[in-house]
């Protein structure tokens, strides 16, 4: 049977609307489910007491918040200069030869390697061989390996978007290459670079697999970067798998969603704000 163009039009439009609505409904259900169930449990007390750990679901999430903050601080302190420096070299200095292509290709390929594979690597190297044991440091170093390809790529993209003519103008005025990079290219590429950095922070907060196998999951309050710990995301996993406190797992999930939402809003605001500033608005 062949349908007339008119009826295929009507049918296909219905299906497309259905796909759109179903997708949006699934996603709205997911977020609102976690938020409504979770927010009912969240209280100042929940945020300020540490979890009991083990098979008990009692307590709050304070030590998980602290561990997450420690982890982000160490990770970003090393990752940011490393990733941005590497991207500067690749966009501004690297000669157009096979070796450079090889580097870029391996960075792109590694951007898709699953986090548990990096976790395995981090467990063997940082936890066992280098004797950092299960610690925030081991987790952070593993996370750096995981996020590095992403940050290099996003920074490179941001810098590449700056027109060549701006660099040429700076060089023609007598600036050195480095002065051009620092005073012309980096400021112009800043919105893109900062967005990449914030996405890395978001990735660190959302990550669970590679941290589950490198940080040990202790529920105690971390005292230094050498103590073990569990981030909020890993805490959700422990609560769900080892305790009956599913309501607290949902509450922790709600906290995570709110943090990710906030980071999203910050990137949106930042890119609009910086864009306007650069265009002289």
């Amino acid at each position: 049977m062949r349908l007339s163009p008119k009826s295929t039009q009507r049918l296909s439009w219905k299906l497309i609307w259905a796909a759109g609505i179903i997708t949006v409904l699934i996603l709205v259900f997911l977020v609102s489910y976690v938020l409504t169930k979770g927010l009912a449990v969240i209280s100042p007390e929940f945020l300020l007491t540490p979890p009991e750990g083990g098979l008990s679901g009692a307590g709050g999430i304070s030590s998980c918040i602290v561990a997450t903050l420690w982890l982000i601080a160490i990770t970003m302190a090393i990752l940011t200069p490393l990733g941005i420096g590497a991207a500067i070299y690749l966009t501004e200095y690297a000669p157009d030869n096979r070796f450079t292509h090889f580097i870029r290709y391996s960075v792109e390929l590694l951007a898709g390697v699953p986090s548990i594979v990096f976790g395995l690597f981090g467990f063997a190297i940082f936890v066992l061989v280098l004797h950092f044991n299960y610690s925030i440091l081991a987790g952070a170093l593993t996370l750096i390996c995981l996020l590095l390809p992403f940050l290099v790529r996003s920074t490179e993209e941001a810098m590449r978007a700056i027109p060549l003519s701006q660099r040429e103008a700076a060089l023609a005025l007598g600036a050195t290459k480095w002065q051009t990079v620092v005073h012309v290219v980096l400021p112009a590429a800043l919105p893109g670079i900062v967005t990449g950095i914030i996405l890395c922070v978001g990735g660190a907060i959302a990550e669970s697999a590679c941290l589950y196998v490198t940080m040990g999951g202790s529920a105690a309050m971390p005292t230094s970067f050498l103590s073990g710990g569990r981030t909020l995301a890993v805490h959700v996993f422990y609560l769900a798998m080892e305790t009956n406190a599913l309501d607290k797992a949902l509450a922790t999930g709600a906290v995570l969603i709110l943090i990710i939402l906030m980071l999203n809003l910050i990137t949106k605001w930042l890119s609009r704000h910086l864009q306007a500033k650069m265009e002289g608005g």
Partner: protein
Amino acid sequence: MSRYFIDRISKRGVFTLAMVAFLILVFVAVFMLRESLPALSKIGLGNILLGVKWYPSHDSFGILTMVAGSLVVTLLALAMAVPLAIGCAIFLAEVAPPRIRRITRPAVELLVGIPSVVYGLVGMIVLCPLIARFSGIGSGSSVLAAAIVLAIMVLPTITSISEDSIRAVPAQYKEGALALGATPWQTIRHVILPAAHRGIIAAIVLGTGRAIGETMAMVMVIGNSPVFPTNLFAPARTLTGNIAVEIAAATGLHESALFTTGLVLFIVIMIINSFGLIAYRRAK
């Protein structure tokens, strides 16, 4: 310090950083290979890849059941997610009124960033009991639960990248087709989708990579028994889950076998991503 001196120093500086970054990544690959060698030489690649028994206490390390687990769950998830995601991408790019688009677009972007454990948690609380009641066996931790959770997880990723590539089709194509009297659906089907198809393929490939690599959400809903995924309502285990569940207690040959599991994952993802990269480059 003269600016020329700074110029030279900084060039060395960023070169060093780039090399450090590159070497870290090479080191990860080499290390994975080296750690898998004991298992590969003692047990043999064939026995690991094609072995169906995973009994670490008896030194049998066959991962075929997990390879099957990962593939079945991923394919089922894609079968559910791809039609929905492409439909939703067409909806957002071509059909939806601007008012709806302004809300849904950021919402889909937000969902890409939500931690996978949250998806796993909702799957555990909402989906598994439903499946248990429907099938009448076990706790509901099953291949089907894993596939549905995975489908929902890759939905935002595939939707947002497909939407971008549909939007990137020049407006003249669409206007030309409509001016010739094609219906909007004919225009989408015969003009816009063919023009955007490489970007859509890239989106699907990226989604596939994410699905195969997903770990914790799978551990939460699939039940983790290393058996063949022959029954939709029965548990199975994925390659990623195998590593996560066992690494803390593993030593010696067992540990090496887990590295081999990681290596197999690494290679599968590399192959999928190479295809994705090629498709994406062509799309540009």
